[in-house]
């Protein structure tokens, strides 16, 4: 059926590769196995990730650890209110020697970009990044520069109730395939954290467990994971529910429903399922649809996680 699978199998089983990666990440970020898997699924599904949480729960560490584990080039952009689009995509500088303008690539030209506190920058700067995410290329001074492959953006955002933020509008939230929260560690893990090594030092010691080439290959495998009619019925039922339910302002877009399926396929792939199963969809549902549904009134669930749980409970598996 697909030539990629035998090739990969000869090198290493993708499940094992991923398992090794997640294991390594879990050593750095304690007690967040599910979020780490979602991260990897998002990456495999060629989506971008939004982590929304209060400062200091390990967002940056997670991003950095992923970059290290996958051997990806890594850049961090700290979003501030005076950040300019050129600070992200780069600028043209006049070169005296050649008497020409030379384009100096910005931080966006790396394989993994961490956009830290994305909601603190002005909408202008935000949209520069989000356009690059969508197009996978940057156009400056009439020339088009392709971005790196794989290209993965992890944006972090403070919860909207914290002051000094420009919350991302719905149209831009829709560009992120998944949105996750990390949350506080539980008591035992926190104790371990307090006793253990500094996480940043730990990250520096990480060795790549997966090459960028292997990652690209696995990305091509995701859309080929088998999807049965019964599963499509379920996905469609979920999508239809969000569109017909009176609790939400609007249902999820077709882009989101494709994203939901791709994420479920990626989840199925890293879990070694031969076809996508309802549980795979359920595992990624909250992360994929939670930030895309806006509650209409007080009767509706409020936080993205609650929304995901709610939708999941409301729709029967066929």
């Amino acid at each position, binding site marked *: 059926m697909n030539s990629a699978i035998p090739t990969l199998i000869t090198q290493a089983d993708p499940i094992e590769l991923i398992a090794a990666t997640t294991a390594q990440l879990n050593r750095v970020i304690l007690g967040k196995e599910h979020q780490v898997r979602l991260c990897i699924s998002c990456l495999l599904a060629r989506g971008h990730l939004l982590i929304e949480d209060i400062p200091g729960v390990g967002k940056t560490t997670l991003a950095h650890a992923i970059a290290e584990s996958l051997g990806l080039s890594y850049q961090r952009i700290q979003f501030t209110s005076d950040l300019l689009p050129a600070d992200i995509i780069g600028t043209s500088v006049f070169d005296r020697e050649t008497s020409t303008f030379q384009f100096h690539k910005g931080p966006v030209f790396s394989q993994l970009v961490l956009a830290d506190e994305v909601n603190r920058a002005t909408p202008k700067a935000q949209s520069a990044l989000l356009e690059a995410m969508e197009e996978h290329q940057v156009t400056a001074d009439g020339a088009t520069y392709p971005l790196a492959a794989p290209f993965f953006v992890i944006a972090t955002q403070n919860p909207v109730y914290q002051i000094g933020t420009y919350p991302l509008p719905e149209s831009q939230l829709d560009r992120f395939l998944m949105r996750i929260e990390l949350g506080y560690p539980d008591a035992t893990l926190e104790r371990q954290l307090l006793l253990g090594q500094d996480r940043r030092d730990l990250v520096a010691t990480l060795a790549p467990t997966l090459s960028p080439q292997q990652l690209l290959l696995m990305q091509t495998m995701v859309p080929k994971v*088998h999807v*049965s009619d*019964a*599963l499509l019925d379920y996905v469609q039922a979920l999508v239809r529910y969000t569109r017909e339910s009176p609790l939400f302002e609007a249902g999820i877009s077709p882009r989101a429903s494709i994203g939901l399926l791709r994420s479920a396929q990626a989840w199925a792939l890293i879990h070694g399922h031969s*076809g996508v*199963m*309802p*549980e795979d969809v359920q595992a990624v549902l909250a992360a994929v649809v939670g930030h895309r549904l806006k509650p209409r009134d007080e009767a509706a669930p409020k936080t993205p996680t609650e929304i995901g749980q709610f939708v*999941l409970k409301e*729709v029967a598996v066929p």
Partner: protein
Amino acid sequence: MSAVTLDHRLQQLTPLGQRLVWVIAGLALAAAPHFGHIAPWTMLIAALAAAFRMTAEVKRWPLPSRAVCTGIAFASLLGVLAGYRTLNGIDAGTSLLIVMAGMKLLETRTVRDLTVVVFLSYFALFAAFLYNQNMLLLPYMLLTAGLLTMTLMRIHQTEAMALREAATTTAKMFLQALPLAALLFLFFPRLPGQFWAVPARERSITGLSEEMTPGDVSDLSVSGAVAFRAKFEGDPPPPRERYWRGPVMHMFDGRTWRYGGASLTPQQVASSGSSYRYRISLEPQQRNWIFGLDMATGWDPRRAYRAEDFQLHARQQQISVLTSFDLESSPTYVTTGELRDDLRRLDTYIPRNRNRRTIELARQMRDRAGSDEAFIQSVLTKFGSEEYYYTLQPPALDLNAVDDFLFNSRRGFCEHFASAFTTMARSVGIPARVVTGYQGGEFNPMSGYLVVRQSDAHAWSEVWLEGRGWQRIDPTAAIAPERIESGLDAAISAEEEVPGRMLRQSAVLSKLRMTWDAANTFWNDQIVEFGEAQQNWLLELFNIKNPRWQYLGIGLAITLIGFFAILSAYLAWKFKPRSRDPVAHVYEQLCRKLAKLGVPRLPHEGPNDYVARAAQARPELAAQLAEVRSVYVGLRYGPMPLPTQLSRLKFLVNQLEA
């Protein structure tokens, strides 16, 4: 307030407030037909409640507490009870309905409360048919019912529903309901008699009454209201034969004629010449008078009887709804038998101290004439040849009304002439009486009916002549023969105003009026009057003869149940889930079995989670379940389902002990 600002104000209301506006409008429209026949204070209370509720909505006032609502409702209940002395009956019931709908508004907090108000509005609206079954009411009722249905639909939508969409859906629903309504209308058991009929009520329809004072009939002539309609087999009688007999007046006090008053001897009628068969449809009245064509010779004795002075009466107390009778009449007739002494005394009595000049004049004329017949002729000639005027606006007369009329005013309507003539006849000892009724009628070629209106009201005289019995003498025919031949319009001089004459003289308007009347007739005869007889006729088409109403009811119920069963089956078939694949079927079996084992599947549970949970609950089945799970998941969600796996799955599921 312009439409734009109104719309803007509406937009500012809460969703409940916006719905409330429509609910209140619907209630107002539904209650409107009751204006005038229920106590005004009930309407006022409902209106105040609506106004308060709306103000509360706009100003965000809190609604009255439950105790206050209960108090007001109880007070209103007592008010209705005090006003009507009962809570039973149409008036009290309707008043209560409208008051309570208003009260309900005071506690409308949820969509459910609004629904209750809309339902009350439906009841109030349809209660209007208990009062009035006029054709004009139908479009009003349909429109209001449509609005109520639209409101009901819209208050239950979470998305704002466009008016147009609601209207389209409502229209569709009405059309869908139409066949059912027609079926129920045609076949719902009709019981004979008054059981289903609306209880009798006083109605303010003016018609002929039990007494006649000069001026009464001319007042009536202003009214264009229909008194009754008659449909003849064959041609209707010529205008000069169209005397529709009503109450006969015997007693006279010098001014006013009164009805009845003596037990009368039955008298025989011998008819000669042609007779007419016809059906008369009487509009509701306060009496039970059937205005048969003079002289009625055939009627259904179970439903009507002919009184001693030849007036037809219905056997019921009051003709309170439109009612039809099949009659036969013969315009040429002779009454036979003797006049009994008591009746002779009654019909020759005049107060001696009144109308002295008339009595004197009559005696002189009788002496000159020589015979009763010649006397009658001379009186009629006097009316015809001297300066008497036929007018709709006769001047008021004093106590000696006949003297005043004959010698002073000389202007009168039919009752003046009939009264004067009868007085003169009695003055000379000829038994005479006044007959009131209708004369004439307009033939409507569109419906084939003769329409008789209140304006055709008439009064004439009857005299008893030895050997010839009662003879009809119409003095109006002497003074204004056009009245008899062509109706009121022709008889009144052109200078005088006759209400509606202009209308009747325009060809287009006349045509419109005829069409309107034909439509009304159809409505009255085919819809309002649809009863047992018509239903039996209809059933005979289906070869069902004289069914008992119980059987008809049961038959109808069975038909309806059958219809809805078929409809539900069709809908179930149409909207049934897509044909399930066999794997899903087996999985459902598995779920049923596990449910019996105490592990029912949650609807949102995926197969892995579910089977894992089941295995945890029933560890002894864990191994079996693990295989079931892997086979099922492979078949249902896997890339290459094998047909052999299906039989394996079936086998495994069958193996499970339930």
